[in-house]
């Protein structure tokens, strides 16, 4: 089984340890891992901000990079970026004259996977041999949950970690308030939404908040850090890499 990593810009630039953890976990499961360093950004920021021509040019670059990649799967540590390519590229190439790009994308799309989805659905593994003796809670990232319909896989993976205590917070499926550029354009509203999330995290009494999107985790950890909380955030890949 060969996997090509689709490392998001945020992980590449801000949270490289998430990429390292993905590599370690996948290799432990016997997967051959490669990284194509011609990859850049999937175009989500431009797309969500209304700049479709710019998003289209980034999508074309993404397709060029991965269409010739011989890997069986293209796996990403983000529900949001996976959803961008899998669900929203269609809207960028729905012009009648974009037929060529639709065809080229059809060679990439079926191989796109989000990290937890790949391990549970494609590898058929729930216990990756990790151990983490702490109380954790799981935050459902919105795009992972509602664009990709993934909520069960990460929980199965967490429950199979040895010595971990998964405590569900109240309404784990409500937004953390990040929302891409929304978090800076409407920072006060974004923060108000975040505070609701932080209160629910605090009520759950955990030591770690786990999620599959570094963007949500940056928002949550930014709020926890500002509030002086001792609760920490951790990407699912990092949890699964713990031994």
């Amino acid at each position: 089984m060969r996997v090509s990593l689709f490392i998001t810009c945020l992980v590449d630039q801000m949270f490289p340890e998430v990429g390292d953890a993905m590599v370690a976990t996948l290799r432990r499961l016997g997967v051959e891992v490669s990284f194509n360093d011609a990859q850049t950004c999937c175009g989500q920021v431009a797309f969500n901000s209304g700049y479709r021509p710019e998003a289209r040019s980034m999508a074309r670059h993404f397709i060029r990079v991965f269409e010739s990649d011989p890997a069986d799967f293209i796996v990403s540590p983000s529900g949001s970026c996976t959803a961008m390519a899998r669900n929203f590229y269609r809207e960028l190439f729905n012009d009648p004259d974009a037929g060529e790009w639709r065809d080229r994308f059809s060679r990439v799309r079926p191989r796109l996977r989000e990290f937890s989805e790949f391990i549970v659905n494609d590898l058929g593994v729930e216990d990756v041999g990790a151990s983490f003796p702490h109380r954790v809670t799981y935050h459902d990232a919105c795009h992972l949950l509602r664009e990709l319909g993934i909520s069960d896989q990460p929980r199965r993976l967490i429950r199979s970690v040895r010595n971990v205590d998964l405590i569900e917070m109240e309404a784990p499926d409500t937004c953390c308030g990040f929302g891409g550029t929304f978090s800076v354009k409407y920072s006060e509203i974004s923060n108000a939404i975040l505070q609701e999330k932080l209160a629910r995290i605090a009520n759950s009494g955990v030591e770690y908040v786990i999620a599959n999107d570094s963007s949500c985790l940056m928002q949550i950890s930014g709020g926890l850090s500002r509030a002086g909380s001792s609760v920490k955030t951790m990407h699912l890949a990092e949890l699964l890499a713990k031994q």
Partner: protein
Amino acid sequence: MTLPDPDLIQRSHAALENDILQGALKRATDTFIERRREAITSVADWEALRERARRVKEHTINHLDYYLEQLVAKVEERGGKVYWARTGDDVSRYIIDLARARGVKSVVKSKSMATEEIELNHALEAAGINPVETDLGEYIIQLAHEKPSHIIVPAIHKTREQIADLFAEKLRQGRPNEVAEITAMARRRLRNEFLSAEMGITGANFAIAETGSIVLVENEGNIRLSTQVPKLHVAVVGIEKVIPQFRDLSVFLRLLPRSGTGQKQTAYVSFLNGPRQAVPESGFEFHLVLMDNGRTRILADEQMRESLYCIRCGACLNVCPVYQKIGGQAYGWIYPGPIGAVISPQLQSLKQSGDLPFASSLCGACRDACPVAINLPDMLLALRAKARESDPGRKPGERTAMRAFGFAARHPRLFALGGKLMRAFARMLVKDGRIKHAPLHPLSDWTDYRDLPAPRGKSFRERWKKNEGE
């Protein structure tokens, strides 16, 4: 990066600073979410019901001309009069002319978003006609000279204490202490209004093409009185409200109350089939005003057409994390929440309310709650693109940044270098292992409320190159 609409930001700020409003919003939206969750469990296959409703709406909206003509023919056959209004002003003019011709001085109104949309009350008052809102929430809003802050619960932002104070001040009959006293006081006042009004104005939840019926759903009974006591009933109905057949109601009457108030059934459902006695000598009249007011513009846009499927239940407002925090009035017009952010820029203009679609985290909870499964996040994204395409001069800084980012994204080495420089810049801001204060937009908007982690020494691509020795 230039900042978005200061008004929306200022209005949101005011809402977030208002502790009473925050408490009222939290209680109300939590309650509605919980009631809805409970109510939908009584439907065997909720998803299948939503799918059916969506198909009916899709079919109807795609053949709107046919069903509207059928509706009009049926209403006229039953002795009703129909007026096609292109604009809100046309609606107001028609109703004022009618009121003058019949010597109407006082009007009772039931809750209607269509008439809120066109500010009918202002027009009536300017013409010397006195409109009285008879829905309790709308009555409160009218007394307070405010605008509704929720599609189905117009006074959701007000607490019982505030309403008691308002009644004491405006009605001058003492301060009601209990909810029952508040409703009793409103009821006494409104009974007299019903008895003296010469015209009743309502909206409609549904208009059935097959039978020419107007269907109204309510809990207070004020719609019954508004349509049955005065001799003259005018229904102002957006053209998207038509459904083909009576039996389609079996779908929508199960969806609407569950999604809206979390009820299996509202206290009253009224079916109105033309004037009460279809003989001219009786003096009873029914007028159906079919209102366009921008709806045909939405209809013409295939990408946005499904925003006309909305049945105005308000479920998307209750589950929206943004609405839960800023409430309805911050949206600046009468349609708040996700559906408001979708239809306001279309019914008004992108210039006027084109910032609303950006004030969303795109979490998608609205789409899951929508009883007709409108793809609200997709509509918001489409409107964001339209806003940027229709006004290329807007936000020059952001546009330049996006272009530069797009260019770098096609040139991996430049992209990597840009990232490296940004991290080097950000590292200079680190104090105590994190960034607490950044000097420039948009980073400073982030650090106004949240910390940023200290950037690591190397990016993933640099680590990979080093570790894997490529």
